[in-house]
């Protein structure tokens, strides 16, 4: 039995200290998933808190043989999917006041311009994810941010592996289309400032 399982068992036996350790260990992955799913820091904070509360209340149902991260992120994903379905209109924004959301280009970096471009691309993809269906979004987040296999995503989202494959396929295609559209728009917007034609 590894150290994490020991903490989980202690938490299962009612140790608050052990559960606090779990919260500290998993706060970033859970928050990140909620942020990528909901798109807003406040909503992500609330969803992450609620995820840990639900995990705490249902810890007796957790099967120690399964990976804890999958179980915990599954709770977070289902909660976020429910929240997104309850929201009539998708609210997805790139939040300016979240200090950790925006990446300030590193002036010491060898290519600060390239850093800025990468930062823009990251925010662009973050905004595009907001246009995906809630379950597709969860599958994409689990695949790219957590390196979950299709089987792990299927387990976490209660889907079949073929359904996960199909959702990832569809989501990638949609993201590609959006990426192409936004690149075209960016080129059109930039063109007036390009070098004058001779």
């Amino acid at each position: 039995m590894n150290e994490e399982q020991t903490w989980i068992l202690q938490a299962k036996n009612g140790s608050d200290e052990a559960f606090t350790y779990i919260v500290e260990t998993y706060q970033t992955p859970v928050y990140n998933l909620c942020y990528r799913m909901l798109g807003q820091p406040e909503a992500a904070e609330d969803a992450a808190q609620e995820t840990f509360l639900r995990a705490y209340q249902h810890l007796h149902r957790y099967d120690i043989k399964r990976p804890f991260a999958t179980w915990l992120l599954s709770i977070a994903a289902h909660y976020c999917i429910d929240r997104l379905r309850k929201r009539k209109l998708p609210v997805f924004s790139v939040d300016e006041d979240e200090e950790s959301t925006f990446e300030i280009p590193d002036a010491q970096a060898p290519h600060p311009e390239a850093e800025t471009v990468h930062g823009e691309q990251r925010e662009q993809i973050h905004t595009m994810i907001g246009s995906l269906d809630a379950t597709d979004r969860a599958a994409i987040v689990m695949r790219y941010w957590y390196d979950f296999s299709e089987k792990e995503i299927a387990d976490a989202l209660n889907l079949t592996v073929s359904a996960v494959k199909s959702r990832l396929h569809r989501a990638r295609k949609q993201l590609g289309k959006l990426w192409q559209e936004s690149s075209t728009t960016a080129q059109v917007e930039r063109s007036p400032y390009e070098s004058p034609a001779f």
Partner: protein
Amino acid sequence: MNHRPFEDWLLEDQPLDPTQKRELNAHLRNCNACRAIAESNLALRSARVVSPAPGFSARWQERLVLARRAQRRKTLLGTLFFSLGGLLLLVLLAGPILVSLIGSPAEWISALVHVLLFLYTTTLAVSEAGSIILRVLPDFLPPFVWLVLLSTLSGLGLLWSVSIWRLMRRPQGATS
């Protein structure tokens, strides 16, 4: 090679051998749609992990305290509601007996006999009426109506049991 296999490689995120990689790179130079998928895949891979604001676990503990308080209140209210409901039902059923207990023994015995007689005659009447209804009703009601009635009754019973269970259960660790 045409566009289709390259798009499938990208959309299915398949591992490619060096020859396939070379072919794909050559295709990407000419195909905007595939390049967009490849670039968006790359942007997804380079996306970073966002952390919560400092003090997350302290805020969670505060939330846990509030949740425990709410759970205790819910359990207390549930218990109170069911206890008072049960008590009210008991008072309604045992009312006549209680009233007669307060009076004299003669009145008490007389009231007891009355109640017993009342219960006996009521039971007889109800069972007679029930047997008549059970004899007559099947001819009037088609089987699907019986099915609906029985399903509704079982559904209500189930709902009642689930409500009691949900009100009374104590979540893991929420006892302290």
